């Protein structure tokens, strides 16, 4: 056993500082979003800011527990934790409580927990554990498959709850796979598919086919001497055409109107701020009305008077945008990016593969949340209900992200003791 004196010795204080900075800013904005003159005691437990203060306090307890724990415990218990997490997700189908249309909660009296928030760090531990196992390589089809199963099993359970936003987060692990040796082609292919997907919705299929055929023609001309290349180009072209066709078909025949509308609004094809695009429109109004320096703390009318839906959870960034303006919003964006950079830098200095992979998982998950959440509030992505890490109101998500980050900080503090 080590002495308490050395307990915090090797901790990366930059990460700790960034964590508390974001959590504090988040709390200030939750206070502003819920604020009214009648209830202004910050400890009022009937108000969200009061509860969030409780979540922050209990998170500190979680942090201390992690710090006192043995760092090797996480590696040892990675799979058991993962399995418990999967079971807790499955248990939702039986014992889950439905909140806002999704059966993703366990209720304990007035208090509820969302296991999908904890599944993230569990999956990160399991992924790190598996990929760091001797002999497992991203170059092996079998190992890739097992890694995919680990990552997408929780997602597959979460989707039908239904909570597609939380499920989507698991695609962030592709970045981890990339870091561990998966060919960059998959990442580019992924991006290409996303771009093709958007284009096929924006442009009529016929023009898109002509466009792809033209590009294919150019490549065939360039590689006209290589029979193999030509075959691959033609195969890719046919795949693209098939993909476009299926997207077109899915969009027009499989998707329900509400999904179609959401996507159409996002693509700028339908302008309907009063109807289905209401959330995005109100969110952009709130942020846009903040101007350069914002309306001032507690002065935001859009968030205070409930024009922005889900403003203390998924749309918390609106409060930042409205009250702190462009300057404040940019500071928050920069704080997040600093956090991501720091996690990668810290991950890269790990001697153990487990710690490194876990670190990349943390960075990828947080980055994905950040990217989708903020893109959604500023009208760059469809409304997908996922929280902004450390910022959004909610005990489960704060606890989940705290566990995620501080297990990594603990692993890092222990890096010297690994031979």
């Amino acid at each position, binding site marked *: 056993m080590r002495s308490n004196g050395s307990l915090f010795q090797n901790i990366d204080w930059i990460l700790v500082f960034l964590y508390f900075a974001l959590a504090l800013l988040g709390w200030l904005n939750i206070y502003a979003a819920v604020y009214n003159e009648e209830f202004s005691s910050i400890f009022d437990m009937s108000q969200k800011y009061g509860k969030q203060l409780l979540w922050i306090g209990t998170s500190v307890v979680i942090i201390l527990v992690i710090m006192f724990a043995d760092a090797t415990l996480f590696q040892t218990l990675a799979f058991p934790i993962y399995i418990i997490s999967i079971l807790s997700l499955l248990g939702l189908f039986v014992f889950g409580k439905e909140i806002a249309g999704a059966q993703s909660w366990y209720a304990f009296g007035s208090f509820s927990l969302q296991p999908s928030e904890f599944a993230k760090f569990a999956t990160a531990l399991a992924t790190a554990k598996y990929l760091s196992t001797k002999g497992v390589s991203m170059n092996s089809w079998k190992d890739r498959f097992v890694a995919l199963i680990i990552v997408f099993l929780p997602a597959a359970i979460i989707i039908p709850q239904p909570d597609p936003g939380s499920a989507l987060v698991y695609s962030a692990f592709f970045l981890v796979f990339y870091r561990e040796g998966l060919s960059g082609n998959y990442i580019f292919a992924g991006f290409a598919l996303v771009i093709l997907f958007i284009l096929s919705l924006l442009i009529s299929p016929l023009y898109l086919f002509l466009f792809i055929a033209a590009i294919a023609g150019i490549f065939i001309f360039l590689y006209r001497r290589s029979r193999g290349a030509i075959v691959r180009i033609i195969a890719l072209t046919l795949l693209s055409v098939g993909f476009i066709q299926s997207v077109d078909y899915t969009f027009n025949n499989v998707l329900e109107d509400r999904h179609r509308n959401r996507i159409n609004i996002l693509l700028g094809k339908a302008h309907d701020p009063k109807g289905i695009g209401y959330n995005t429109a109100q969110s952009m109004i709130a942020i846009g009305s903040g101007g350069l320096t914002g309306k001032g703390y507690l002065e935001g009318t*859009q968030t205070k008077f409930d*024009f922005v839906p889900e403003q203390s959870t998924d749309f918390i960034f609106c409060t930042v*945008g409205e009250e702190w303006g462009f300057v404040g919003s940019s500071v928050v964006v920069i704080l997040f990016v600093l956090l991501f950079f720091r996690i990668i830098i810290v991950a890269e200095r790990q001697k153990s593969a487990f710690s490194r992979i876990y670190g990349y998982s943390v*960075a990828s998950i947080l980055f994905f949340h950040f990217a989708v959440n903020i*893109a959604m509030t500023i009208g760059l992505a469809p409304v997908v209900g996922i929280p902004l890490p450390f910022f959004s109101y909610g005990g489960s998500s704060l606890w989940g992200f705290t566990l995620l980050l501080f297990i990594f900080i603990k692993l890092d503090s222990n890096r010297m003791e690994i031979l």
Partner: protein
Amino acid sequence: MERKYLFYFFFIGLALIFIARLFYIQVIRTDFRLSAENNVIRKEMVYPGRGLIFDRHGKLLVGNQSAYDIMVIPLQVESLDTLEFCGLLGITKELFISKMAEAKAYSYRKPSVFVKQMSKEHYISLQEKLYSFKGFFPQKRILRDYAYNSAANVTGFIGEASDRFLADHPSYKKGDLVGITGIEKSYEEVLRGRAGIQYKMVDVHNRVKGRFEDGKYDTLPDPGADIICSIDIDLQKYGEQLMNGKRGSVVAIEPSSGEILALVTSPSYNPELMVGRERTKNYGRLFVDSIEKPLYDRGLLAEYPPGSPFKVVNALIGLQEGTLTPNTSYTCHHGFHYGRLHVACHCGTSYPLPLRTGISKSCNNYFCTAFKGIIENYPDAHQGMNAWSEHVKSFGLGKFLNNDLPTGRKGFVPDADYYDRAFGYTGWKAVSAISLGIGQGELLVTPIQLANMTAAIANRGYYYTPHILKKVNGQPVTDPNYTEPKHTTVDPKHFDIVIEGMFDAFEKGTARGSRLEGIEMCGKTGTAENPHGQDHSIFVAFAPKDDPKIAIAIIVENGYWGSRWAAPIASLMIEKYINGEITRETLEKRMLDGTLKEEYQKQLDAVYDKKKLIAENK
């Protein structure tokens, strides 16, 4: 290349995209700021009380009552129990659907009127439940409240501003009320005041959260000014009662000021019909009544040949022109004869009549001869006719009076040009226009012009433009149009002999049946020829003779001759105004109960028979 760089690339790339996007929506685009204000700020109009209207003795004629419009903002309406809601508001489901569609067509975000002018009692009964229906809210409105079932044509009514009116008057908004007729229209500017504006902050459920910027941009309502009008409501009401069952009008003016004491048109309507939710329906019903024409203000709009009362004006012109003296006498041979021309007379005299008796007996021969004398006093008929025409117009006839009533007619006084057009330059002479001598022919006057002419005679040569306004917010009228006298072209010295003739009409002439002990009345009966049916009964009078307090003109349509209906009514009106009470109960009862309904029905039948005949002949 190390793989971490792709991560760095993603972090920096996305941060740049986000910051650029934030810069775009927060700094470059400014329209979000406006949208945010639209979200939060609700502009509420605070309508001031419309100015009150009192009669000349301070009796309240038109007051205010509160009513509530139920407004709707379609965007905020959530699914509701339509049946319960309709029951609460007392409307049908069909109306609910059509009103909702109408509101959506106008705007999703801006409020529209959903249910108009709900009574205060009804509103209070549903007030508490209304809040559970999102998107609906009350808007207080001021409605008019009429203390008397009387003078509807004088006070007029207010109604929702029409689209055309709104286009010309930017300070009005859809749903605003505006004077449509009468004093409400003439003095719209005075009565209306200015609505105040309150900017309130509302939340997404449209609950008021406070004032925007502590009310920095709010304006207080500027209440409308109260008006004291010149009407004597007791006299007005009495006139309406006397005219009950008859068509026509009574116009009474105070000669010393030009103030209109009574302006009765018959038939009229109950002003309460023009208030509340039934207004449109009632208005439509009154509007289409082409037989009774209750919305038609006969006192201002109906044009009649003035008949015998006009003889007084001819007498005055003759005196002024020197073609008549008080002693000029003509002998009547049952009428005026010139060549083949013949104007009958029923004065029943066969001895030389001096001017005074000519008036009191209303001899047609006397005034045809007098008129011929006036015209022929000039070298040619053109000059004579134009000189005559100018004199007549100086009594306020043949032109707009330019008064403060929102409607009126010019009437018609012919001049030489008129006869040139009708007969050619050389085709006419004095006798061609001889019926002008007895107030018939092409002459047309409105009852208010006739009353004003009588006031000019009562004043011995001048009149004040008749007007309905006495005081605004306690301040007397200062408009010189109403405070400066307009003089006739006839010198005051000529009036006394004529007035003596009018006095004799009551004492021993055509109006002696309407004489009243104690008040020296002067008057002139008349019968306006009516080619469409029974002649109209006309009477003009003023009293007392030496200190005129009231000048009055009365026309009873199809009332046969002047002394039958118009003269007794005038006499009772004068008695009522000067003495405040009626002593001749038999006469009063005969006038109150008397009706010409049978006469009107007979005419209506005749019209239908004629149409039937035409139809059958086809």
